[in-house]
C-alpha cells in the first residue's frame, strides 16, 4: 500500500489540492484547512485575553477569549473528540468564527491532493466533526470541519452562559476609564 486513492476511482474528490495544517491531540493526528486558521498562539501568550467561564452545558469549553473584536469560545479538542485529557500548549484561532481550539502541538503545514469523503459507515457525530479523510505518510488522517467544533445550539448555550458576565465587564471598563 503506497498510494492514496486516485481521482475518479473512489468516490469523487472533494475540491482541489489544498494547504492543510497537521496537528496532534492526545497522540492522534488531525488535519485542518490552513485557510480556516487565522492564528496559532501559545496558550502561555494569551495572558489576560482568556477568561474562565463557569458553565456545564458545553463541557468542552472552559474559557472565552477576547480576540480583536471577537469573543471566541475555546474548545478543548481532546474533549471534543472524546480523547484522553492532555495538556494542550497551543490554541488555533479559527478564521471568521467565534471558535478557538486547544491542541497539543502542530506537526507541519503541507499541501494535500484531495479530501476524500467519509465512508457512509461512519454515521455518528463524526459526520459533523470531519469534512473527510486524507492520506499522509502512510496514514489516513481525518480532516476536521471548523464548523463542527461548536454547533449553533452550543454557541447559543455559551452566549447565554456568558451574558451575565457582560455587565460586570462593562463596569470594569467604566471604572478603568
Amino acid at each position: 500500500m503506497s498510494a492514496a486513492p486516485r481521482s475518479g476511482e473512489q468516490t469523487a474528490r472533494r475540491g482541489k489540492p489544498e494547504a492543510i495544517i497537521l496537528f496532534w491531540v492526545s497522540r492522534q493526528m488531525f488535519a485542518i484547512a490552513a485557510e480556516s486558521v487565522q492564528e496559532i498562539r501559545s496558550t502561555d501568550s494569551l495572558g489576560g485575553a482568556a477568561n474562565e467561564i463557569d458553565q456545564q452545558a458545553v463541557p468542552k469549553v472552559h474559557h472565552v477569549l477576547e480576540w480583536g473584536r471577537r469573543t471566541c469560545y475555546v474548545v478543548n479538542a481532546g474533549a471534543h473528540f472524546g480523547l484522553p485529557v492532555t495538556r494542550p500548549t497551543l490554541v488555533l484561532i479559527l478564521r471568521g468564527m467565534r471558535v478557538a481550539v486547544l491542541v497539543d502541538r502542530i506537526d507541519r503545514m503541507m499541501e494535500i491532493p484531495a479530501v476524500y469523503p467519509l465512508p457512509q459507515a461512519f454515521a455518528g457525530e463524526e459526520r459533523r466533526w470531519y469534512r473527510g479523510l486524507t492520506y499522509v505518510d502512510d496514514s489516513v488522517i481525518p480532516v476536521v470541519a471548523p464548523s463542527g467544533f461548536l454547533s449553533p445550539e452550543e454557541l447559543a448555550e455559551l452566549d447565554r452562559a456568558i451574558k451575565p458576565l457582560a455587565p460586570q465587564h462593562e463596569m470594569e471598563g467604566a471604572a478603568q476609564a
Partner: protein
Amino acid sequence: MTAGDNSSQNSFVLLRIGAQRFALPAALVAELAPPVKLHRFPHTSSSVSGVIIRRRRILPVYDAGSLLLGKGVAAQQIYLVARCAGAQKELSAIPVNGECEMATGEVQPPDGDRPSYVKGTLRIGEECVDILDLAILIASGPSTGAGADHTEARP
C-alpha cells in the same frame, strides 16, 4: 432465470469469525484482501473499527467480532471485502481469520429464534451454517454481549 443465475444465487463464501463459521452470498463478495494496515481515528460509530486502503479506495472496516459474537476477536488474518452497507451499497471490509472457502448447498429458511441478520441456513453435509445479511447485521449494531459503551468515541 437461467441455470447460471441459479448457481450464482446458491454460491456462498464460508468464513470464520472467532470459532464460528458463517456464509455470505458470493455475489456480494468483492475480494479477500491481505492484512493491510488498519487506520483508526476518533468516531462514535460503534460497529466500525477503522478504515483500510484497498485498491485505492478507503474502505470502512466493521468489527465483525462485536457484531456477531459480542466481543472483539483476536488474530483475524485477512479482510473480506463485500457490499454490505444497505442502501449505500458501499464496499466495506470485515476481518476474518483466513479460512474462507466457496460452497454451494441447500438453503433453508432460518429458524424462528435466529437473529434478524440470519437470512437462512446453508446445509453442507451434516453442517448447518448461518447465512448473514450484512446490511441488517451492521444496522443492528454490536451484539448486546459486547458490553461496550456505544456513545464513547473510539480512537
